[in-house]
């Protein structure tokens, strides 16, 4: 309950973190409410996986297993760089495949077919790893749990609390009739990708001051 209330009270902050990634994507895909619900569910699943990963990490910290990891940014940074580049590609350069016969051959076509499905989940996973203040609070709470199951339940409750605020997002699909909005959504996703690319690079270089 503590974790659920924590998630509920900080849900707007979480949705503010995730909406810049998810809303442009939903607009960019230009699908209906049902399909957008599926995409949002994929996104939330990715986020849940990210949370559960941190639940394990929290438990590990609790058991002093991961004491050696002094710079987590060096793990998260490259992930940001790779996934942001994917987002930039999606936003500005990806073209829709219209002919099925051209999609059946070659790695490039396979990627083009697979990525639109997995991008929301990857994005959800990456935003799930965001070290925002409410997340750090939840993490601190999870670290206190003694078993991995307790830790995972704690994060799951936190996830449920924050996820309530994602319910209106699939309705972005109401705008699917406007082709201009799809272009705008894709470009916005590309711009967000630039932001995350910068974040990833800064994590890698450690934000040196001059």
């Amino acid at each position, binding site marked *: 309950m503590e974790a659920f209330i924590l998630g509920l009270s900080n849900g707007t902050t979480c949705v503010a973190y995730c909406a810049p990634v998810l809303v442009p994507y939903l607009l960019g895909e230009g699908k209906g409410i049902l399909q957008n619900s599926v995409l949002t569910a994929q996104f939330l699943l990715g986020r849940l996986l990210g949370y559960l990963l941190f639940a394990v990490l929290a438990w590990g910290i609790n058991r002093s297993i991961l004491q050696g990891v002094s710079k987590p940014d060096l793990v998260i940074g490259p992930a940001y760089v790779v996934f942001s580049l994917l987002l930039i590609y999606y936003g500005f350069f990806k073209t829709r495949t219209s002919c099925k016969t051209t999609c059946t051959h070659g790695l490039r076509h396979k990627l083009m077919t697979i990525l639109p499905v997995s991008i929301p989940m990857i994005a959800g996973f990456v935003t799930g790893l965001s070290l925002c203040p409410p997340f750090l609070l939840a993490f601190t709470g999870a670290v206190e749990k003694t078993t991995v199951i307790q830790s995972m339940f704690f994060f799951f409750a936190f996830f449920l609390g924050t996820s309530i605020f994602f319910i209106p997002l699939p309705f972005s699909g109401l705008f699917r009739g406007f082709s201009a909005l799809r272009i*705008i*959504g894709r470009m916005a996703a590309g711009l967000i990708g630039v*932001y995350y690319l910068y974040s990833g690079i*800064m994590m890698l270089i450690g934000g040196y001051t001059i």
Partner: protein
Amino acid sequence: MKKNTTEASATTRRSLFKTFLLCLPMMLLTFMMLTGGSMPTGGERLFALAATFLFFNLLFFLMVRTGKTDRFRSILFITLAVCFVFSFISNLIAVRGSMALSRATMIEGGAPFCHLVIPMTLIPAVLTKTIIFPGKILGSYSIAGMFVIWIGVSLALGRGLCSWFCFFGGLEDGFSRILKKPIIKNISKKWTYLPYAVLLVVVLMSALTLSPTYCQWLCPFKTVTEFVEITSVKVLIQTIIFVSLFIGLVVVLPILTKRRTQCGLFCPLGALQSVTNKTNVFEIRIDQDKCVQCNKCIRVCPTFSIDEESLGRGRVKASCTKCGKCVDACPQKALFYHVKGTSLSSKLDRYRLLFLYPAFLVLAIIAGRFVQDAMVKAINLITTGTMI
């Protein structure tokens, strides 16, 4: 064709007396606005006032007499931008000693608030009841003052704000007029949607970070106004980004394309202003009976607001800034200013005049202060060797 054009111009040219009568209200209004109710005492200030008054009213007189809008608007618009930059930078150097904005100044709320910040402050203001900008609420260059001006100008002119108010737009307008012919001609239509994407992103990111994202990262005009002191890698990267955007979008691309690329392909406020065009009474219409599809209007439009589809519909796009360049350029006089809900066949130049009064007055009011100030500083510099 040339004969027709000459005939059309001749019909719109007014007599001197009638032009004078039509300009009288503007003379009175500009005099009131430039003096602010009291005459200056210093010689150089009096000279600047007289010169500014004559310059403004000469341009308005020529607009009314010749029927040309953009030809004379652009002179004042470019003058405004140059004088604004000159006046603003010299003030900063006089007060602070540099163009760099220190952290202490930001904490004190000393950063001037400009209209480009408006889109990103709205949602955080609603959500958190705070203004995410280190500026003053009241006084000169204040947040409240700029909001009131923005609402007023948006109601009066819609996106006309971008060509009749924005003190930055004149810079790229000026650069876009350097070459006679564009070197880059074909720009994909999809890039005209980029301002809306930038708007969406800066609004979301500002709500997320509770900071003015566009000002910090993207605003190219910080290059010619003020910028944050470089004290970290982050600020260094921000500086590289906005200087690059200035060089690219405000200088190089306008020269190469003869378009206002920052306004047409990037500015988030411009995207927001396009929405206000929907509620504004003034618009540019295309008479499809007169149009011979020469596409000259498409080629000259600085903000990519006319395409073949527009010609088919008889209306320009919502991104039109009402600069009047297409109206001036059309050899058939097929494009014209129009007041929504009124007849399309009666004396069309009346609509242009109805638009010109508020639009020129806005431009004159915003330009008056900066032009006079720049002139006084230039006189001081020449006569005393110092601008203050």
